[in-house]
C-alpha cells in the first residue's frame, strides 16, 4: 500500500460519499433529481458547469495536443470564451422558457417549442448516441490516469469498474445535486494540481514561462503557430472549429439541461460573465504540454505527456494526488452524462413514444431505473470493446452542434417551423456522417462539422420560409407580460 494508492482510493471513496450525502433528506421528484428543483445559486452553478465542461479531455487532451500537435491546441483555450459569450445571450432566455413550461431536458425544449414529438425523439436519440461514447471516454480516461498515477497498483479496468458503479450509485440517490457537490471537490483538487504543475514545471526546467518559450522559439518555432506539427490544422481549420465548438458547447444535452437548475435567469447571465476565468487552468495545462515537448521528447502517447512529466518531476504521492484529481475530473461529467442519458431515455424516448400518459412519478422511477443500464452500456464498451464507439465519439461534437439552429431560431425567430428544423437537422447530421466517415474531415481545410452546420442553417431557414405558417407552441418571452 503506497501513499499514491491511498490518496486515489481515498479521494474516490470520499467523493462518492459526498455525492450520496448530497441528496440526503430530499424528497426526490423528477424536477428535484434532474434540475435540483431549479434552486441552484450563482456559486454552485459555476462549480457545476465548470465541473461538467472541464473533463479528462481537458486534463489529458489539452496537454497532449500541445505536445503532439502544437499551436492547434490554442483552440481549446478559446472556444470556451466564445461559448460563454453566446450563452450570455441564449441561456437566460432558455431558462425563462424552461421555468414557464416546466422543462427538464433539451428534447423537452424542442417538443414544447415546435410542438412536434418526432423532433423531440430525434433530438433525444442523437443526444443519447452522443452521450454513451462520451461517457465511455470519461471512464477510459479515468482508468488511464489511475493506472499511471498509482504506478500500476490499480489496473485500469478495476478503476473503471469501481468508479463506474460508485458513480451510478450517487446519481441514483442524489441526482444532479450529487454531481454539483462532488464537483466542489473536483474543482479544488484540479485547480490545485494544475496550478502546482503548470507553474512549477516551467520553473523547474527552464526558470519560468518566458525562458521556456525562448527555448521553444529557438528550437521549434513552427510548433507555436498554426498549423503547428499537423498537416491539416491550419488557420482556417482553427477558425471553423472554433465557430463549431463555440456554438456546439451548450448543445450537449447534459450541459444544456443543467442550465435549467439555476435559480433565476439573472444567475445564469452572471455566470456567463465569470465562466471565462476557468480558462486560466487550461493555459497552465498547455504550458505543461509544451514543457514536456522539450523535457520528454519522443513520447509514444502524447496524451500521457502531463502525467509523464509529473512522474519525472514530483514525488510519487503527488503523482497520486494528480491521479486522484484526474479521477474526480472524470467522475463529475460522467455522473451528469449518466443522469441526463437516463432522463432522455425515460422521459423523451420511452414516455413520448410508448406511454404518453405516464405520470411524472412513473417517469421519475423509470429515469432512475435507467441509470444502471446506461452506465453498464458505457462500462461494457470501455472494458470489452474499447474501439467500438470510436466512430460515434468522432462525430459527437459535430452531431450535437447541429441542434444549434433549432435552439437559437426557436428562441429568437418567429418564422422558424418544425419542418424547417427537422430538414436542417437531418441534412446536418447526414453531412457529418458522410464527410467524416468518407474521410473528408477537414474538407478544403475547413472542419467538416462546421460545413454541415452551415448547410443545416441554410436549409432550416429556407424550408421554414417556404413552409410558411407561423409555429404553434411557446409564446416568446417578450410577448408575455405576466410573471
Amino acid at each position, binding site marked *: 500500500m503506497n501513499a499514491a494508492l491511498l490518496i486515489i482510493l481515498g479521494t474516490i471513496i470520499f467523493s462518492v460519499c459526498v455525492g450520496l450525502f448530497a441528496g440526503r433528506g430530499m424528497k426526490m421528484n423528477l424536477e428535484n433529481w434532474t434540475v435540483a428543483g431549479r434552486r441552484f445559486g450563482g456559486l454552485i452553478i459555476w462549480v457545476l458547469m465548470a465541473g461538467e465542461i472541464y473533463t479528462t479531455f481537458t486534463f489529458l487532451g489539452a496537454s497532449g495536443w500541445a505536445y503532439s500537435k502544437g*499551436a492547434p491546441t*490554442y483552440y481549446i*483555450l*478559446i472556444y470556451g*470564451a*466564445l461559448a*460563454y*459569450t*453566446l450563452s*450570455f*445571450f441564449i441561456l*437566460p432566455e432558455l*431558462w*425563462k422558457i424552461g*421555468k414557464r413550461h416546466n422543462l427538464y431536458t433539451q428534447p423537452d425544449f424542442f417538443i414544447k417549442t415546435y410542438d412536434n414529438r418526432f423532433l423531440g425523439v430525434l433530438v433525444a436519440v442523437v443526444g443519447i448516441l452522443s452521450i454513451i461514447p462520451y461517457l465511455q471516454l470519461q471512464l477510459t480516461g479515468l482508468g488511464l490516469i489511475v493506472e499511471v498515477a498509482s504506478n500500476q497498483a490499480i489496473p485500469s479496468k478495476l478503476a473503471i469498474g469501481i468508479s463506474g458503479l460508485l458513480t451510478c450509485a450517487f446519481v441514483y440517490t442524489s441526482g444532479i445535486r450529487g454531481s454539483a457537490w462532488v464537483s466542489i471537490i473536483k474543482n479544488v483538487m484540479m485547480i490545485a494540481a494544475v496550478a502546482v504543475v503548470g507553474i512549477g514545471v516551467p520553473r523547474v526546467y527552464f526558470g*519560468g*514561462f*518566458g*525562458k521556456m*518559450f*525562448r527555448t521553444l*522559439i529557438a528550437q521549434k*518555432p513552427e510548433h*507555436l*503557430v*498554426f498549423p503547428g506539427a499537423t498537416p491539416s490544422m491550419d*488557420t482556417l481549420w*482553427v*477558425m471553423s472549429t*472554433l*465557430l463549431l465548438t*463555440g456554438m456546439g458547447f451548450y448543445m450537449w444535452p447534459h450541459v444544456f439541461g443543467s442550465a435549467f437548475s439555476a435559480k*433565476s*435567469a*439573472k444567475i445564469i*447571465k*452572471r455566470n*456567463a*460573465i*465569470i465562466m*471565462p*476565468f476557468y*480558462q486560466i487552468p487550461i*493555459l497552465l495545462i498547455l504550458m505543461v504540454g509544451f514543457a514536456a515537448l522539450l523535457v520528454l521528447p519522443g513520447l509514444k502517447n502524447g496524451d500521457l505527456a502531463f502525467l509523464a512529466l509529473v512522474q519525472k518531476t514530483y514525488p510519487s504521492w503527488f503523482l497520486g494526488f494528480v491521479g486522484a484529481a484526474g479521477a474526480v475530473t472524470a467522475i463529475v461529467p460522467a455522473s451528469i452524462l449518466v443522469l441526463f442519458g437516463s432522463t432522455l431515455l425515460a422521459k423523451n424516448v420511452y414516455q413520448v413514444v410508448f406511454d404518453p400518459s405516464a405520470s411524472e412519478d412513473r417517469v421519475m422511477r423509470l429515469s432512475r431505473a435507467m441509470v444502471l443500464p446506461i452506465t453498464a452500456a458505457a462500462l461494457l464498451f470501455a472494458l470489452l470493446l474499447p474501439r467500438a464507439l470510436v466512430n460515434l465519439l468522432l462525430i459527437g461534437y459535430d452531431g450535437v452542434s447541429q441542434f444549434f439552429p433549432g435552439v437559437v431560431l426557436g428562441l429568437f425567430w418567429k418564422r422558424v417551423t418544425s419542418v424547417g428544423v427537422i430538414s436542417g437537422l437531418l441534412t446536418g447530421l447526414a453531412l457529418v456522417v458522410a464527410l467524416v466517415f468518407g474521410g473528408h474531415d477537414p474538407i478544403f481545410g475547413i472542419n467538416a462539422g462546421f460545413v454541415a452546420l452551415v448547410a443545416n442553417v441554410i436549409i432550416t431557414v429556407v424550408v421554414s420560409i417556404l413552409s410558411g405558417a407561423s409555429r404553434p407552441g411557446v409564446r416568446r418571452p*417578450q410577448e408575455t*407580460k405576466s*410573471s
Partner: protein
Amino acid sequence: MQKGTKLALLLGAIPFLTLVFALPLVNRIKPVILGLPFILFWILLWVALTPLVLFAAYKIEKRFNSPEDEDRR
C-alpha cells in the same frame, strides 16, 4: 429588439472578431510580448478581456432595457 440588447450584441461580437476572425492576421511569433509568441499573447489578452466585455454588456442591458424585460424572478 431593445436598445440595450442591440448594444450588448455589438459588444458580444468582440470576442468573435478578435478570437476567430482576426486569427489569420496574428498567426505569428514576433513580436514576442511578455515572453510569449505573439499569437498566444493575443489569444490570452482577449480571452482575459472577455469577462470584462460581457460585464459591460450586462451593465448596458441593465441601463438601457426597460426593467420589465429583466427576468422577473
